[in-house]
């Protein structure tokens, strides 16, 4: 079974070579039969990679220690779930997942790309095949998960305990679906550059793929953030860690791409820019893969440190980024300019959005790579952390958020800022009110935080305003308004939801940053600690034996100040026996959107235990906001427009042609 998986992986590599070559030749010579090879080959390559992946998962489930990778990263006493997730909790396995998702997207284009012109489709599939072939070569030559041990050891050496968590089950696959999803945009851009045909229709065809990748990446980043929040025991939700930045940069570029593609689709303007963004989004994904996989960074995620791999990925990065940008430079002049527009217009607002988002991407890029570059050149070691990013990134986000509700309200081509401003009166009033209420009635709110609350309210009400105005609620009869509301294109709901979600996330971040309370105390059983209107009583400490760890579990009783019992919070210190590695399992009690977070420390001098307790008001909104953004993206993806494009007589079939969520 293991060797069949290995063989299937080799076969997938061979198929990728064919996938890269035949459709491309077919597209150049306009041979339909050669172009038609792309689809079935892409689907078969995916099937082979899936088989290979399943074989590896099976080896993990069965604790087959004749596979080096399983022996290094698994243990027979591990719970089944973590045996499965352990498959991609290491370098080789995660790269196999990477190529699996790459071929998955290739197969999706093949299966659901019926609305694409055959030449474009063939080129897209060929470029996907080329990326696939390069990465299969990487996996097979430097990171092969199927290396065998002839004398199989009897016990494995266990997975890093920090990675033994449900978060690992969801976070990397989602993140990779996003990262790698942008490869389709990249392939579309390269395909368009090869043919030199870049028009409004292209923007519409590429849009569902951008959306899908963006939705997954949003989910992956949010999931990673929540995972770090509860698993690392520091209670932080975003650390500006280079690995986080590596996933955040493609997200920013992808978000910019989503917006500029709208302009290209409607007005055929910003063509060069949109193509460039499509290339950049995936290039940044590759950069992220390089940063994480080469081991140039050291952090929780850096489980690979092998220079040959780093150099290989760097070569791939140089080939794809350099190649695509050269092609871009070669073709960019020949593109015809598109529609014109005034600075104050929907297009203008979207350009502003792009300006801020790409500049923000650039600051994150500088902050992430500057320390590496400096160390390489001068040997000096510096750390660029939260203060840098908060200053630069924050400074860029504030004006972006102020401008955001205006965008959807401006007309195409020539907009009326004053009129849009009038319509946003309610939002402005609400924002002002929210800021004032926070400033005057909530303890500990600074003027700065009050501005933050106002800004969050501005986004939330602004998003609702857009829907209200479009449906004409208040200006036409309720029944008419209701009908109009229901008849709005789904993409309008998508925009509003996504903007609303961003508002929620902003509200959560502002609230936690400004109002979070923290107590660090040494407690003995029976001691209590007050925090933000809650009383936490340390009940008892018990040793507990888990399947592959032992832990000291501390039980706390949570109650309101008035004495109403709110249940138990359990926090523990764990030691994983195979690696003798300690971890802290935080205890979290969710109250509404807020959370009480309890983390255990070391024994204190007086015989008690150091306990760190936080009250984190509205903290869950940070991730709920991301979920709402994903819902908005999904709504847009379901818009009927995105299915259009197949010639009329194929329309019935094409109606099913949306990529699966």
């Amino acid at each position, binding site marked *: 079974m293991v060797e069949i998986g290995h063989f299937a992986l080799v076969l997938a590599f061979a198929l990728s070579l064919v996938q890269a070559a035949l459709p491309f030749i077919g597209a150049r010579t306009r041979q339909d039969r050669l172009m038609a090879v792309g689809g079935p080959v892409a689907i078969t390559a995916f099937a082979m990679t899936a088989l290979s992946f399943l074989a590896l998962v099976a080896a993990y489930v069965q604790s087959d220690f004749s596979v080096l990778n399983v022996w290094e990263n698994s243990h027979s006493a591990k719970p089944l779930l973590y045996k499965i997730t352990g498959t991609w909790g290491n370098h080789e396995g995660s790269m196999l997942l990477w190529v699996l998702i790459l071929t998955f997207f290739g197969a999706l284009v093949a299966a659901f790309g019926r609305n694409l012109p055959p030449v474009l489709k063939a080129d897209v599939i060929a470029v996907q095949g080329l990326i696939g072939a390069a990465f299969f070569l990487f996996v097979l030559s430097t990171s092969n998960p199927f290396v065998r041990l002839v004398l199989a050891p009897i016990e494995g050496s266990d997975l*890093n305990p*920090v990675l033994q968590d449900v978060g690992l089950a969801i976070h990397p696959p989602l993140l990779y679906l996003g990262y790698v999803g942008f490869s389709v945009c990249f392939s579309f851009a390269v395909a368009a550059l090869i043919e030199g045909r870049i028009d409004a229709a292209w923007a519409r065809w590429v849009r569902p793929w951008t959306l899908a990748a963006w939705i997954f990446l949003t989910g992956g980043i949010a999931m990673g953030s929540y995972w770090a929040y509860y698993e690392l*025991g520091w209670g932080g939700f975003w650390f500006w860690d280079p690995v986080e930045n590596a996933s955040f940069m493609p997200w920013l570029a992808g978000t910019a791409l989503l917006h500029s593609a709208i302009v290209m689709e409607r007005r055929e303007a910003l063509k060069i820019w949109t193509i460039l963004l499509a290339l950049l989004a995936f290039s940044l994904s590759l950069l992220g893969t390089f940063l994480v996989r080469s081991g140039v960074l*050291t*952090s*929780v995620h*850096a489980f690979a440190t092998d220079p040959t791999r780093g150099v290989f990925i760097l070569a791939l990065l140089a080939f794809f980024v350099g190649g695509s940008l050269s092609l871009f430079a070669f073709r960019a002049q020949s593109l015809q300019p598109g529609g014109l527009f005034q*600075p104050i217009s929907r297009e203008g607002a979207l350009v502003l959005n792009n*300006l801020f988002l790409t*500049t923000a991407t*650039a*600051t994150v890029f*500088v*902050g992430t790579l*500057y*320390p590496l570059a400096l160390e390489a050149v001068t040997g*000096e*070691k*510096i*750390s*660029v*952390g939260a*203060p*840098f990013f908060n*200053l*630069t990134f924050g*400074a*860029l986000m504030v004006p972006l958020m102020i401008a955001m509700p205006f965008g959807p309200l401006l007309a195409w081509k020539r907009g009326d800022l004053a009129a849009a401003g009038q319509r946003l009166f309610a939002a402005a009033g609400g924002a002002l009110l929210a800021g004032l209420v926070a400033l005057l009635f909530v303890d500990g709110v600074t003027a700065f935080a009050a501005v933050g609350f106002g800004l969050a309210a501005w986004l939330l009400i602004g998003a609702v305003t857009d829907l209200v105005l479009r449906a004409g609620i208040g200006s036409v009869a309720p029944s008419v308004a209701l009908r109009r509301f229901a008849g709005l294109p789904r993409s309008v709901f998508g925009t509003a939801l996504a903007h609303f979600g961003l508002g929620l996330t902003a509200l959560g971040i502002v609230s936690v940053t400004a109002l979070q309370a923290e107590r*660090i*105390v*040494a407690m003995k059983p029976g001691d209590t600690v007050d925090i933000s209107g809650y009383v936490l009583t340390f009940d008892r400490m018990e040793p507990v034996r888990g399947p592959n760890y032992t832990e000291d579990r501390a039980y706390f009783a949570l109650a309101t100040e008035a004495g109403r019992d709110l249940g138990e919070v359990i926090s523990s*210190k764990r030691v994983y026996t195979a*690696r*003798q*590695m*300690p*971890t*802290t399992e935080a205890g979290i009690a969710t109250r509404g959107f807020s959370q009480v977070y309890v*983390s255990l*420390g*070391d*024994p*204190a*001098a*007086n015989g008690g235990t*150091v306990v*760190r307790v936080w009250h984190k008001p509205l903290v869950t909104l940070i991730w709920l906001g991301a979920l709402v953004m994903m819902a908005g993206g999904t709504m847009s993806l379901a818009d009927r427009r995105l299915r259009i494009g197949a010639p009329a007589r194929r329309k019935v079939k094409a109606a099913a042609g949306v990529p699966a969520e």
Partner: protein
Amino acid sequence: MTRKQKRLAVIAGALVFLGGATTLTFYALGQRTSYFYMPSDLSAKPVEPGQRIRLGGLVEKGSIQRGQGTEVAFAVTDQEKTIKVVYNGLLPDLFREEQGVITEGAFDPAGNFVADSVLAKHDETYMPKEVADSLKEKGVWQEKDGG
């Protein structure tokens, strides 16, 4: 304004914006980054009290003193010089004697290093990169016994 002038204005605006963003970025890089030091670097080029730095090294054996409640004091050493660090908070899971740590904070006027964050190595084979490199240069730490 003619169309050309308008376009020039837009381009000028974009350039001013980009210039501003670049200035901000480099200003922030200069102000908001902290340099990494080992204890013996500090005797070579001292740091003003109050300036934020990152101090890395090994936790000296027998130097950990837990105060009342959550206060803790320990010494960070690179086997040449030793710096006393005070910290109020939860130590990371992997904080142990003779293991690598990175602390971030500033010196108080009395010459104690007041840390507001303490990071320890993340797993059995991982040493904070800066610490490992510097210790290797000094020949104190070897791959096997340091891990």
